[in-house]
């Protein structure tokens, strides 16, 4: 079953593009992009078992910690640098995102919206930190270090002089058009900085 976020990302990327997937997990997205778009892709992943899974399916990957930066790569070396569901787990957002914008002509960021309607209702009526389908973790077991809304991400970009080229919003496997900060559980932004 193809994930909608993967389909949206594949729709953004041109055929044959050079792609770097940061926090690429088991390589699902890279394998999909290779098959659909013939990208020349590679990933960075910290977890050994995930790295082995990538290599097992023929996805090029290097084991490493994206918090260490991307110093070895030259400026604008990749057409797209992707953080899909990984940016919220990054310790040094400013540094890592800055590095991604340096080495990538475009950066694709897929983030969960911590302020979508369901989360807000739980917070307001139950007085509990939300646990929803798109935010499945409890406070004590979450890998997420960053809790942000789509508005927060937009204002961060404005402050840092990062331009948002495109934005797509999703909830429950469907695209959302209206009031995304309220109704979308996830967003995919395409950003750049020249």
């Amino acid at each position, binding site marked *: 079953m193809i994930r909608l976020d993967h389909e949206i990302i594949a729709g953004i990327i041109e055929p044959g593009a050079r792609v770097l997937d940061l926090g690429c997990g088991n390589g699902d997205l890279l394998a999909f992009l290779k098959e659909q778009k013939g990208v020349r892709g*590679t990933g960075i992943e910290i977890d*050994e078992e995930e*790295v*082995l899974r990538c*290599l*097992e*399916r*023929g996805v*090029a*990957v*290097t*084991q*490493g910690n994206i918090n260490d930066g991307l*110093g*070895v*790569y*030259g400026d604008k*070396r990749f057409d797209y640098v992707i953080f899909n569901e990984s940016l919220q787990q990054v310790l040094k957002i400013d540094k890592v995102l800055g590095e991604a914008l340096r080495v990538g002509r475009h950066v694709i960021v897929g983030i969960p919206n911590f302020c979508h309607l369901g989360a807000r209702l739980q917070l307001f009526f139950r007085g509990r930190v939300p646990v929803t389908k798109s935010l499945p973790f409890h406070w004590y077991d979450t890998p997420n270090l960053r809790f942000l809304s789509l508005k927060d991400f937009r204002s961060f970009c404005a402050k840092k002089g990062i331009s948002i080229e495109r934005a797509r919003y999703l909830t429950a496997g469907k695209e959302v058009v209206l009031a995304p900060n309220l109704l979308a559980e996830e967003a995919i932004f395409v950003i750049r900085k020249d």
Partner: protein
Amino acid sequence: MAVIDKKQIVFQEPLLLKSGIFLSPVTVAYETYGTLNPDRSNAVLITHAFTGDAHASSNGASGEKPGWWEEMIGSGKAFDTDKYFVICSNTLGSCKGTTGPSSVDSSTGKPFGLAFPVITIQDMVALEKRLIDHLGIRKLLCVAGGSMGGMQALVWPIMFPESVLSSIVIAACHRHSAQQIAFHEVGRQAVMADPEWMEGDYYGKAVPKRGLAIARMVGHITYMSEASMEQKFGRKLVEKDALGYSFAKDFEVEGYLQYRGMSFVDRFDANSYLYLTKAMDYFDLTDGDRKLSDVVSGVRADMLIISFTSDWLYPSYQSQSLVRALQANDVDVSYVEMKTDYGHDAFLVEFDDQTRVIKNYLVRVERERK
């Protein structure tokens, strides 16, 4: 289909060594497994480690002893001999059929001993290239090896970028560190301190067994990890229930090292031990002052680098600096640090994860060529 082919070839044309010396003639012992396809595009070269030989696998042949990478090479294995033509040759300077210090010097009619020129990893690769040319292979699908074999696998795409499509470098480095040199020097001093070494001129007489055995004992310690030694031996006593209050063997680990040391002297030449450790110690792709990223800038091969968490002899940081240098050059590189307690020996032990990765890596390399 030949399951296993064992051959020796003599190259008369002098081989120019890195030191500037010419060596000739040079004999190479090698084995091949599987069948070279009509367009000669399915050849994989396996480069062996320090004390290895050309017998990497029995490839299922009856009556053959298992090879040193038996579990990795054969029908359906990581290096699948149903698909690939796998070649393994004994390295230059060794003592398993390829020219080395124990070979006869044609100018004197006696074994070389210390008259054998000091050789380098690059010289081993230059000789392997001759063998590949001789077999009519223009481009290897892959070259792969661990430890000293990994160094050769790394040199290949640098020296001969057009002749290799991919390279697998396992538990290796681009430059021997002070610690790596230090352990080798202890081994060499042990050999040379043995009175029977006689400045390397011991052939036909008693061999310097004690020195070579001690050198091998030191080596074995560096190939294991503290955890693997603890698991294997702990403080278990050997053939006794209590400490003996003497200097006879007390602990199992002592007995193991002594056994490994003494069994080694029957199968390895002491002078080869000196020459090969020296070749590894001389190994520095940066030649002291070049940037590694410049050194690897000509690499065209797809690279797979593997290191092991508990390998303190060739620690992961060495592989990681290699990975970064390759990334800086837009080389396609994959890297995994495998979790294991087996230390440096892991490349000869951890078959499941290596098979998972290598088998599919070769499939991808082949697919992407088309």
